[in-house]
């Protein structure tokens, strides 16, 4: 009942060009804050605030065996945990489908943009490669976790230094960080465009997320080319609508790029 009423109310507001919190349709909440190095134990970490949405990301590094079909490449492994800490609707236990989707959408943005050269994570071909284990933990969920998480992951990677690795003893000394940084050649920015009624908005709050018809997350690089897309939500879209959403994402990514 509540959600139906809320949907009608929000649709009416959006038609008049206003949001529940007074924002315009295509405005992000401001300011977007990025903190680097928020966890001393992580090899790299960052925390992104989009007003009340607060996401922490840490990168741990391990040395492991490469996949047999990619013997000279390291890799990234992105996980997300939606704990009841951040939202009372989240539950304890193994990652549910929302957490899995979040992690995979963010993973794809980084992987497919080729932001990282996985070959540079190789220590010894076929035997030893670096694995970058990236974990996304929302601290407070007030909507738009995907965009906030993608931004935080990028920031955490920029923050990361490799720990000291002794090739003879094959041990990592986590206490000693080297000067070696993770080389990021590109910076993919994820923008989620949401459709409610006939209106497109960005950066939804949790209240707006309750009544979403469709969302499309689009990751773009600096030159405006696209590197990952994920559609969510129950309603289908026309290709014209999709192209409009792509335009919005390219435009908004420019803004987000500046906060890093």
């Amino acid at each position, binding site marked *: 009942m509540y959600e139906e009423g809320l949907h009608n109310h929000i649709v009416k507001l959006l038609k008049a060009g206003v949001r529940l919190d007074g924002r315009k349709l295509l405005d992000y909440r401001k300011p977007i804050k990025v903190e680097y190095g928020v966890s001393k134990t992580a090899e790299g970490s960052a925390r992104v605030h989009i007003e009340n949405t607060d996401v922490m990301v840490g990168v741990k590094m391990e040395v492991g065996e490469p996949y047999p079909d990619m013997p000279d490449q390291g890799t990234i492994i992105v996980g997300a945990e939606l704990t009841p800490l951040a939202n009372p609707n989240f539950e304890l236990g193994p990652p549910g489908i929302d957490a899995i989707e979040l992690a995979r959408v963010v993973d*794809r943005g980084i992987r*497919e943009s080729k932001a990282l050269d996985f070959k540079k994570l190789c220590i010894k071909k076929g035997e030893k490669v670096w694995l970058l284990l990236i974990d996304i933990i929302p601290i407070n969920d007030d909507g738009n976790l995907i965009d906030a998480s993608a931004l935080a992951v990028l920031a955490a990677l920029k923050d990361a230094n490799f720990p000291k690795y002794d090739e003879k003893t094959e041990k990592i000394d986590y206490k000693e960080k080297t000067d070696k940084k993770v080389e990021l050649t590109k910076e993919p920015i994820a923008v989620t465009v949401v459709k409610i009624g006939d209106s497109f908005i960005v950066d939804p709050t949790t209240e707006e997320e309750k009544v979403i018809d469709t969302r499309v997350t689009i990751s773009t690089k600096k030159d405006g*080319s*696209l590197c*990952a*897309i994920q559609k969510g939500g129950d309603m*289908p879209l026309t290709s014209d609508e999709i192209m409009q959403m*792509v*335009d919005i994402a390219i435009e908004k990514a420019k803004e987000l790029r500046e906060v890093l």
Partner: protein
Amino acid sequence: MVYKKRIDDRGFEETRKIEAKVGVIPRADGSAYFKIGDTWAYAAVYGPRNLYPRFLQNPKKGILRCNYNMMPFSGSGERVRPGGSRRSKEISLVTEKALIPVLNLDEYPNSVVDVFIEFPQTNAGSRCAGICAASMALADAGLEMKDLVAAISVGRVDDKLLVDLDYAEEAYEDVPVADIPVAVLPNSDKISLLQMDGEISKDELKKLLELAKKTCKDIYEIQKKALKAKYVKEKVE
């Protein structure tokens, strides 16, 4: 330009050979298989049926539950570990989202429509083949539907725009590649599944969406023909 000719000699806008059939699992309320090249999807529909545990029930409408699963021997590389992975869970989710728009779930309060999708063998394009099979199986189950759902992956290898990428094309090295699975509701031309990974420009995406819609119209004809074939045959007997 490196990619002048497709590995298997197909035209750039040509799909692999498609074969579709409904009613292939007699025990199920509805079933179908959909083969495209070496990718082979089976779908079985059970329901609408009572949903347990009861706290999952929705008194206002039924729910659709899809499960995508690769048989352990169906991957081109190592054995696929049974029991589901993060990948299969995500694909199950997007499959549900692709199919929901054509169903009238308001008709089945407190109930569930279960769709099980299994693959005996795959060579890329499995989520699209699974969606094609599932939508036929839903129709075969006699559920009220607003449309069928047809799905195909489009994409690019180097500067060529392609339809129905196979595994070798998806994994093509040293040139830009993009893979875009798309599901279309053929009667309204609306898109209910859209994912992409790879590298692509806005203009290319626009062209590929049109290409996907065109191809899905052809797939739609194959799906309809398969559905009709079941009943035409039964009439003769």
